[in-house]
């Protein structure tokens, strides 16, 4: 058969397709992805820009990394299976971590409770009702010692979802490692440290943006010198997607934030190539399977070009967008919750086909509460089934060259770049957030999505179709209210046992550093080691930096 021409495609549309559609019309007059990219009747080499081998996609492990950051991908080794976990006290969470590691999980991922994320100790009035709820409560180094008890920090890699208080938690991790005899240059892991998306989507900000960016870049500089294997930021689109953005917006707003961090680091005098490879990303994997696969591929390509063309990075490793993925929490239904296992499996498969470096799979019961142990086990097994049974891991970028996937990849790239250009025109991500632009775009998409469900344009099984009588989930994890008292007592003991004069000394030094331009990390590390609490350290910084309130 000769090469497909536009004329030949037109003939097919006018004859075969038209005849068929006139007999049995399509389910919808128009098909599109969640980002409103049109899905045509058929994708062909013409849509994918196929000119022999598509020049834009390159080869795995090479610029622009569309097909993956490594040449072998999962033929070399699987992604890191990393379940985000943390609840109640450090004691209980330590047990869960040791269980997960025994079950074959290959990295840890710490969820902190909200007071820890917002810089309040467990005995603060605003912590009332929140202690240990969405993650583990950490008040002082003491809790961190318990959290990683019997877990060798030179062997595991640990990801910590922590932003406004990232410097404090990183300092505590370094201090615990020291006590285990592990030097900071051996530590592997990630702190989220992405404060910009806290203003636009996630909400755990403390300080105004300018001061927050100073802390972020202080961490970059410190890690470069003392914790070189550590990912000093995980620029996150996940939370913007969960807040309702489309796939295109997720890519665009995340990369725009990434640009802002790099610009801030460069302004501080850091060399692009010295920090670029320690910047990692975090994306969501949502329901629309092929769009998600294309999204990951597009994100890699756009970032590679940004690093090369905008920042003039020289090293190959600077071009590589490495990312963690979590399946989409907002897609989990409270109705027929067992169906969530299937949703998660598909989303996880999309992440793997998109070339993720690590993955968290959500649990079936998370529309109700934090997951119980059985649910977490199924979620982890889902990843293991994809890795060991599905066969997709034996090929690198197996969907590469699919007309539909390449066309979607191109289209997402184009639309995301339009957004990035628009944000550039506004003066960058920090300005766009301050103007409320990103928040509004996300809120509009969230509202549209809800309306699409309510008008049955978007079907969600068990919600607006195929409903059935609910069988309530058993054994939903409950955080006992006693956790709060236990945590407060532990905090009181720490305060009674420490040298208060030394604590004061370190806090005064920290404030002084904050008022000047010294890197904050050494002072925070001193304070942490003196058992100054997370709340005390945060308060010291609040005194100097002030607090941000939502506009």
């Amino acid at each position: 058969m000769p090469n497909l021409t536009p004329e030949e495609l037109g003939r097919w549309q006018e004859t075969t397709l038209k005849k068929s559609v006139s007999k049995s019309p399509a389910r919808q007059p128009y098909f599109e992805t969640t980002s409103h990219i049109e899905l045509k009747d058929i994708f062909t080499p013409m849509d994918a820009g196929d000119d022999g081998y598509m020049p834009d996609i390159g080869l795995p492990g090479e610029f622009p990394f569309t097909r993956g950051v490594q040449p072998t991908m999962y033929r070399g080794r699987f992604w890191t299976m990393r379940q985000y976990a943390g609840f109640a006290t450090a004691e209980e969470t330590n047990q869960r971590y040791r269980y997960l590691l025994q079950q074959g999980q290959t990295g840890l991922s710490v969820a902190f409770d909200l007071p820890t994320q917002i810089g309040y100790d467990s005995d603060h009035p605003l912590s009332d009702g929140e202690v240990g709820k969405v993650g583990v409560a950490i008040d002082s180094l003491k809790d961190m010692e318990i959290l990683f008890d019997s877990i060798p920090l030179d062997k595991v890699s640990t990801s910590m979802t922590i932003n406004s208080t990232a410097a404090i938690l990183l300092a505590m991790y370094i201090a615990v490692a020291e006590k285990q005899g592990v030097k900071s240059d051996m530590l592997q892991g990630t702190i989220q440290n992405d404060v910009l998306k806290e203003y636009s989507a996630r909400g755990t900000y403390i300080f105004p943006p300018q001061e927050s960016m100073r802390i972020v870049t202080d961490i970059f500089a410190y890690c470069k010198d003392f914790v070189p294997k550590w990912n000093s930021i995980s620029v996150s689109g996940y939370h913007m997607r969960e807040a309702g953005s489309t796939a295109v917006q997720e890519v665009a707003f995340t990369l725009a934030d990434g640009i802002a961090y790099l610009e801030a680091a460069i302004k501080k005098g850091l060399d692009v190539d010295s920090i670029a490879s320690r910047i990692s990303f975090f994306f969501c994997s949502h329901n629309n399977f092929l769009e998600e696969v294309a999204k990951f591929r597009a994100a890699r390509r756009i970032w590679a070009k940004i690093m090369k063309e905008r920042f003039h990075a020289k090293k190959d490793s600077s071009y590589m967008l490495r990312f963690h993925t979590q399946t989409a929490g907002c897609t989990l239904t409270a109705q027929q919750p067992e169906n969530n296992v299937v949703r998660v499996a598909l989303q996880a498969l999309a992440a793997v086909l998109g070339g993720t470096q690590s993955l968290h799979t959500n649990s079936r019961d998370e529309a109700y509460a934090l997951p119980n142990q059985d649910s977490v086990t199924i979620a982890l097994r889902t990843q293991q089934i994809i890795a060991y049974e599905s066969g997709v891991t034996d090929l690198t970028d197996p969907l590469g060259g699919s007309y539909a996937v390449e066309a979607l990849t191109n289209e997402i790239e184009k639309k995301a770049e339009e957004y990035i250009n628009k944000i550039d025109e506004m003066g960058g991500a920090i300005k766009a957030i301050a103007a409320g632009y990103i928040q509004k775009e996300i809120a509009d998409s969230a509202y549209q999505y809800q309306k699409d469900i309510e008008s049955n344009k978007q079907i969600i099984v068990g919600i607006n179709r195929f409903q059935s009588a609910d069988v309530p989930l058993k054994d939903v994890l409950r955080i006992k209210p006693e956790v709060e008292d236990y945590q407060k007592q532990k905090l009181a003991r720490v305060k009674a046992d420490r040298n208060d004069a030394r604590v004061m000394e370190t806090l005064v030094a920290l404030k002084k550093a904050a008022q000047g331009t010294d890197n904050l990390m050494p002072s925070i590390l001193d304070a942490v080691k003196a058992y100054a609490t997370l709340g005390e350290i945060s308060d010291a910084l609040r005194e100097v930096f002030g607090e941000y309130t939502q506009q």
Partner: protein
Amino acid sequence: MARTIRALIAKPGLDGHDRGAKVIARALRDAGMEVIYTGIRQTPEQIVSAAIQEGVDIIGLSILSGAHNRLFPKIVQLLREKGAGDILVFGGGIIPVDDIPGLKEAGIKEIFLPGSSTEDIIRYIREIVPA
């Protein structure tokens, strides 16, 4: 014509997940109600004083952190203490089914779980708010 219903959509506690709250606020507004949205991280005291000051008929609380058992009842209790016990309170978020009876006993009129439609919530508010 019926008078305009005034609603306060509030986020007690520390969680920043405001997607649901914002969607509900907008849907109620589109349905012709007057809606005040508090923004995130509001204390029970702030919510109650906003509700009284704005003279609302009903408060919708959204929380996804698991602190509902502590914070929802506290808000109802504070309303009663301030002589505003006639302001109705409903809630939504990530809430285990087993917690619902206790919350209703504490004076929360209704709990909407993930998957609830805004149409149902609008219908519910119109039913429950006295004309």
